[in-house]
């Protein structure tokens, strides 16, 4: 009984918080992976990298401006370019207000872009958001409720994506918007040139400083979560879990958007290795395979999903084939290892004949 009370009052509220942190960490890792990919195509596709940077900086500045607006500091100056963004308050923030604006600056860019997709989904696909009827009582219960809701949402969201009709302009705009969000969830560099310090460590360092420099505030935030949980517990309300689910949904939207952006960047990177003219073929395959699949499977109820799957598979196969056959790199018919073995054998034969 004693352990149950400790679990209910001390550990249970932590379950959804840990869930949110877990998904946010996955998001952070994926962002880092995308930055790594972008760096690889940096020299050949500076315009694309500049574009992603601009989008990232825009969301960063936007989050910062929201922070100043919510805290009633006001925005006196809003500047955004490809290289940098600047948001200045009308009134200098101090104490807790300053801390809140910093929270928006450092954590906002991870959630604000996904919020835009969330609003679109709320308008167009609100069936994806299943919320529990009441509160939860234990740590494991919290994890299960949180996990179930998120898994249901993920399933519905993926269903929505694989059933997108690319002959419908609104669906195409939605996908483009999702890619736009995925590409710009975090800027690649700040300043004129690429700076490698703007990475996961830099982000985590900023957040760590934010938490450690004013421990009172972070304790206050936790206290707020606990109080909200206790209120929900006593009145059997779902507010607390809904709040945490909201952040979970945003993380999942971001993760999916980043994965789609990954696919785009991977395609660009792969086509760079294919020699000119042939490198257009994967892009052509992308459109033609989809169009043909739609024609072939016109009468089927699952024509959208099968067409997307065929489009992805055929583009992947064509790209892989071209990479093996039509690469920019110098290739010999025999592998280097085989050539080396042949060379050693030849030298050995020569030595043998000279000795004789």
């Amino acid at each position, binding site marked *: 009984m004693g352990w149950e009370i400790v679990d209910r009052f001390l550990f249970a509220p932590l379950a959804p918080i840990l869930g949110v942190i877990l998904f946010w960490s996955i998001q952070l890792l994926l962002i880092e992976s995308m930055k790594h990919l972008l760096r690889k195509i940096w020299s050949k596709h500076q*315009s694309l990298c*500049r574009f992603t940077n*601009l989008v990232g900086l825009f969301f960063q500045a936007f989050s910062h401006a929201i922070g100043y607006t919510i805290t009633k500091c006001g925005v006196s100056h809003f500047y955004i370019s*490809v290289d940098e963004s600047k948001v200045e308050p009308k009134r200098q923030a101090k104490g807790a207000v300053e801390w809140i604006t910093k929270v928006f600056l450092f954590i906002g860019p991870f959630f604000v872009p996904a919020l835009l997709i969330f609003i679109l989904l709320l308008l167009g696909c609100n069936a994806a958001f299943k919320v529990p009827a009441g509160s939860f009582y234990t740590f494991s219960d919290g994890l299960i409720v949180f996990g179930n809701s998120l898994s249901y949402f993920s399933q519905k969201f993926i269903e929505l994506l694989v059933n997108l009709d690319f002959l*419908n*302009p609104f669906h195409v705009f939605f996908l483009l918007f999702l890619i736009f969000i995925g590409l710009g969830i975090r800027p690649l560099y700040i300043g004129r040139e690429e700076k490698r310090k703007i990475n996961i460590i830099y982000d985590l360092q900023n957040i760590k400083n934010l938490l450690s420099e004013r421990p009172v505030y972070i304790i206050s935030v936790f206290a707020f979560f606990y109080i909200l949980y206790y209120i929900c517990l006593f009145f059997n309300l779902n507010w607390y879990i809904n709040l945490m689910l909201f952040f979970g949904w945003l993380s999942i939207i971001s993760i999916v958007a980043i994965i789609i952006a990954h696919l785009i960047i991977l395609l660009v990177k792969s086509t760079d290795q294919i020699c000119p003219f042939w490198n257009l073929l994967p892009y052509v395959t992308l459109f033609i395979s989809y169009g043909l699949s739609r024609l072939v499977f016109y009468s089927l109820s699952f024509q959208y999903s099968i067409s997307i799957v065929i489009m992805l598979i055929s583009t992947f196969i064509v790209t892989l084939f071209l990479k093996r056959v039509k690469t920019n790199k110098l290739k010999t018919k025999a592998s280097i290892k085989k050539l080396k073995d042949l060379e050693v054998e030849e030298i050995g034969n020569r030595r043998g004949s000279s000795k004789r």
Partner: protein
Amino acid sequence: MGIEEDLLKDEHLEKELKPHPFSFFSLQSIALFLILWGIIFGWLVNFSGYWTGFESFLKDFFGSFVLLPVLLVWWVVTLAGGVVLSLVFIRWRIFFIYIFVLAVGTIIMFIGGWSNVYNVFLPVYLICIGLLGVFIIDWYRRSHKYIITNFRVIFKGGLIRKRERTLRYDKITDIESSQGILGQIFDFGTIIPITQSGFGLGKDTSFAAMGVGGTAKKRFGLFGIFGGSKEVQTPRARTYYELHGIYPYREVKKLIESLVQGNVIIPYQKEQVEYQKEQLDIQKQMKALLEKQLELKNQDEEES
């Protein structure tokens, strides 16, 4: 005609430039809107589920004459786009071009007997006009040529009427440069050289007016209007009189600035004064040496 034929004696080519393909995006957006709306309209009329319901409603309301409301939607949305673009670019001619395009399309449809296949004709017509617009704008872009030499900048442009401007670096007093969002992404920008005569400067005018009217029924009518306007000088030139959307922006800007700096008269004059000072010093030293020599000679003569 080759560029070499344009060059003067001792003049050599530094760079030959053309505007970046995206530098005329503001103009292209006028045509792109037609393409985009054509695609959406085509999808709405032919494939969308929304339209089926709307069409049955129209049939209940208009009977067999469904074409009229369809044409109305086609006209209204296109003109709404025209109004927005006209307001954004402050050019009402865009709105009138759209009216012309729609009127021509409607006439062709009725005269050509295409009205029974309006669901294909209307979107295809818009897409074709949009594509034609994109090609014409790109043709116009390609007509521009900027030649930067060690003496001057030659600007050439124009589709039918060919225009040309030659600007010597010593006549440039000021350089205005700008880069939009697309320019920042694709590294192109516009450089406007302003001359002593003010070539390269335009005017932004804002006007405010207020009127008071009286009714005819009253014995004493009153009518008056008062207002005012403000003008601000701003760097502005035609695309063929400025370095419009040039790529790579920073490199060209640096080149132009260094060429202008090299032709500025003040540093040259300063150099001349320094040289003259050096000459004067040498002459003074020589004079002093000659005087000393003369003194020594006089001393020798006195001693002998």
